[in-house]
């Protein structure tokens, strides 16, 4: 066990579009969408910023290596903020999250449990992707299964129950 104190989390509960992207159910869904929020603050100045070819600001952060089994190397993840004047202006995407390119801990077979497809929508929505920021400003990605939801620390559980997506200090 190697515990690192965390001071903020970013989360997104399960949506059909999430599985469409992560598990390749729809070939044209390559991203996980996030509602508008000031995720720039969550990145705490640790993101590399640029703009994509459509002039949307992008932010790249590195998820720390996962030291369990099987281990996952450091992984770069890109956020894209939809600029003003276009559809979904102000909302965000986590790019490059298709079945073959997604963050390994979120992929089918590792993230959701085997009985995921049998779950009703309410239970499915207790599945979350989470990016935690530790007190040294490093980021850690995880999938929270519905089966493990009640085991979460009270503070995190409360936040996840309040909103389906967003970020917050802890």
């Amino acid at each position, binding site marked *: 066990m190697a*515990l690192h104190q965390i001071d903020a989390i970013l989360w997104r509960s399960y949506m059909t579009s999430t599985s469409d992207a992560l598990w390749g159910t729809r070939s044209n869904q390559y991203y996980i969408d996030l509602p508008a929020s000031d995720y720039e603050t969550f990145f*705490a*100045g640790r993101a590399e910023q640029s703009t994509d070819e459509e002039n949307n600001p992008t932010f790249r952060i590195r998820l720390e290596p*996962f*030291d369990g089994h099987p281990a996952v190397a450091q992984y770069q993840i890109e956020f894209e903020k939809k600029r003003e004047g276009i559809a979904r202006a102000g909302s965000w995407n986590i790019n490059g999250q298709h079945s073959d390119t997604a963050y390994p801990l979120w992929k089918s077979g590792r993230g959701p449990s085997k009985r995921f497809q049998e779950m009703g929508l309410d239970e499915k929505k207790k599945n979350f992707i989470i990016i935690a920021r530790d*007190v040294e400003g490093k980021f850690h990605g*995880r999938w929270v299964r519905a089966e493990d939801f009640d085991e979460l620390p009270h*503070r*995190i559980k409360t936040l996840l129950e309040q909103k389906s997506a967003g970020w917050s200090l*802890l």
Partner: protein
Amino acid sequence: MISAEDVLSAMEKHTNVLLYGPPGTGKSYLMKQVQNLFLAKYSGAAGLSCAVDTTAERRAFAEMPVGRGCSRWVTFHQGYAYEDFVIGLRPQASAAVRGGVGLEVRAGVLLELAAQSVDGAGLLLIDEINRGNASRIFGEFITLMEPDKRLREDGSEAATTVAVTLPYLAESQTLRLESGIEIPREFRMPRRLYTLASMNSVDKSIAPIDSAIRRRFYVIHLHPNKQDLVSAAGAAGSHHVPQLAVDLFDELNRGIGLHLGPEYMLGQFYLPSSPCLGEMDEVTAQKALVECWRFKVLPQLLELFHDRPAVCRKVLALEHLEAKRSRSGVQLTKPSSDEEYEGAAEFVVNAQAEASDKDIYEYLTRLASRAASRAMRESKSDDDDGTPAS
């Protein structure tokens, strides 16, 4: 608008943060909010904090005990010294010495807080940092303010960690705090001692802060802006006094900015709060705004323009508005041409006691309407610019 969360986040990243801005922009208020947030976060009701296990894929989130957070607030002034801040000798009643009074080594606020932060996190708040002689107050500890000269997060020593030999202590002597913590003579700064300082941009009577100290701080500028004014005035409900107050401050800040510079503008904390104007009924709000003008804004304006009466006259539109029988509470005295020839100069004095509430409110309404008119003109001009030529 800068929030306490923004400042805490900046502090956790940069360790030392300086809030810099004119009076009334909420520096001290923000510091207090950050202190509350910090203590809530680092003390925790049960002393537990959330953590992620980097080896667990499922059930990776857990609670872990953390050291208690602690915080101290100091205000620098001309009499504040290294002995108060870092370490010094204090008189102590003692039967063992002749005269009954001896000297004992006492830790100052910074050293004490740093020692308490070894197993947790500490926040030092320094209000008015430029009012003291900061380089003398910090002494050799200025080196230890740099994050990379400190211990690592886990308390181990890095290649760049600097040890400072504390004065007044004999070799191998330690300094024992009342809490029982022992501070070694060779002192190393813990990683998680954060500093949040404030500095008033208008304090030109005070020497600017030492550059060595300034460069160790991440500076957050707090500028008066319309959004903060609107928020402080409160939403206009059944009456227009909040909007009038916003227009008034907008007009004043424009004049102040143009003639003195933006660092002299008036912040939103000059406005009445708890309740704010929007939460009052119209008559109460009008009285509150007049009172705010009489006792907070006007004295500050006369101080700012004390050696520039002509600018004061212009910014307050004294001649223009007083010709319309609006009385501002400022009395303008202009010399005759003969007196001017002899070297006399115009002057303004605070005559608010001679103006009635009604007079002043009427004056404020007229002054504020100048901002509203300008906004309309600018809006019209923008529209004109955008109209394609036929």
